[in-house]
């Protein structure tokens, strides 16, 4: 009997705890590959990335890692990544020399139009960024509103959709930008009020960082360029942003862990992706 090979999508849905594996049936089989291919097809230019999920005075550790990996990969591929976030990610990206724009919590349509007009991005990528639900609220998985601590960067994504600028969203719970694509399925199958904001291409993962790594792994597979960092580099960056204030989204603690997963699990996932890239599934 032929052994079925493990895909990159299989790897990033390991340890699923919040139903992303349940939602997989609503996605195309190779959704990470499709997302990677669409990004690679974009005209080279400025590309916006957004991240930063407010937890306890800072953004959580899920999001910035994937965003750093994605931004640096895009830069190597000839894009000009610009991160759009709020003050809760202050200092997370400057240490990697990635251009970062901080938007005010109160910023609205006017400010986001201005950003799009000024930078003319070729695409907008959201990685673990909370978006508005149907009640115009921004809530965490407990249903607690974080509206007062969340810049409405989902407006930027919605404006990009209107302007036909390709949009991409990576999420792991249902309340992130892009989950509007599966709004009905999330409301029906999971127990949360989903984000209503849609994107052109959605990526699901157990941890959003892993979804970003998956897309970068496909970049590497497709282009042959070395783009996915080794575990050690990612772990070092994680420790750096934790030292600034970044917290784990489960424990609320300043620890080198993501969504309660230890560095050991992070290492396993990154190594599995590297093995998959070289065809050793």
């Amino acid at each position, binding site marked *: 009997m032929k052994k079925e090979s493990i895909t990159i999508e299989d790897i990033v849905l390991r340890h699923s705890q*919040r139903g992303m594996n349940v939602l997989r049936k609503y996605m195309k089989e190779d959704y990470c590959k499709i997302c990677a291919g669409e990004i690679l097809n974009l005209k080279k230019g400025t590309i916006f990335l957004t991240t930063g999920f407010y937890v306890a005075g800072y953004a959580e550790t899920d999001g910035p890692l994937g965003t750093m990996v994605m931004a640096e990969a895009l830069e190597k591929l000839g894009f000009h990544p610009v991160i759009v976030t709020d003050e809760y990610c202050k200092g997370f990206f400057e240490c990697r020399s990635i251009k970062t724009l901080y938007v005010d919590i109160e910023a609205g349509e006017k400010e986001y139009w201005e950003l799009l007009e000024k930078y003319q991005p070729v695409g907008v990528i959201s990685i673990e960024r909370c978006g508005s639900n149907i009640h115009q609220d921004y809530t965490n998985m*407990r*249903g607690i509103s974080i509206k007062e601590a969340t810049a409405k960067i989902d407006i930027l994504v919605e404006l990009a959709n209107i302007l036909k600028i390709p949009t991409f969203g990576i999420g792991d719970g249902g309340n992130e930008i892009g989950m509007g694509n599966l709004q009905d399925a999330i409301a029906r199958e999971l127990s949360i009020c989903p984000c209503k904001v849609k994107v052109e291409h959605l990526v699901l993962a157990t941890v959003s960082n892993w979804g970003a790594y998956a897309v970068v792994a496909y970049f590497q597979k497709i282009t042959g360029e070395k783009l996915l960092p080794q575990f050690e580099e990612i772990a070092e960056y994680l420790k750096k942003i934790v030292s600034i204030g970044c917290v784990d989204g489960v424990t609320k603690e300043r620890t080198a862990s993501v969504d309660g997963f230890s560095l050991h699990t992070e290492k396993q996932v990154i190594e599995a992706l590297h093995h998959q890239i070289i065809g050793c599934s």
Partner: protein
Amino acid sequence: MTKKRPFATYLLHYSNEKGIIQESLLAGVQVNEEVNLNAHKITSKNALYYS
């Protein structure tokens, strides 16, 4: 059938900001796998996350 969990597990999952639930738990109220709170159903797994 709804699975029951030890109270201690729930107390770990629901932080102080869910004081009402904690009080109910402490009072020994039966808690199902899902707790409906402000029209947002919090499963025990969702309650692990602050994001």
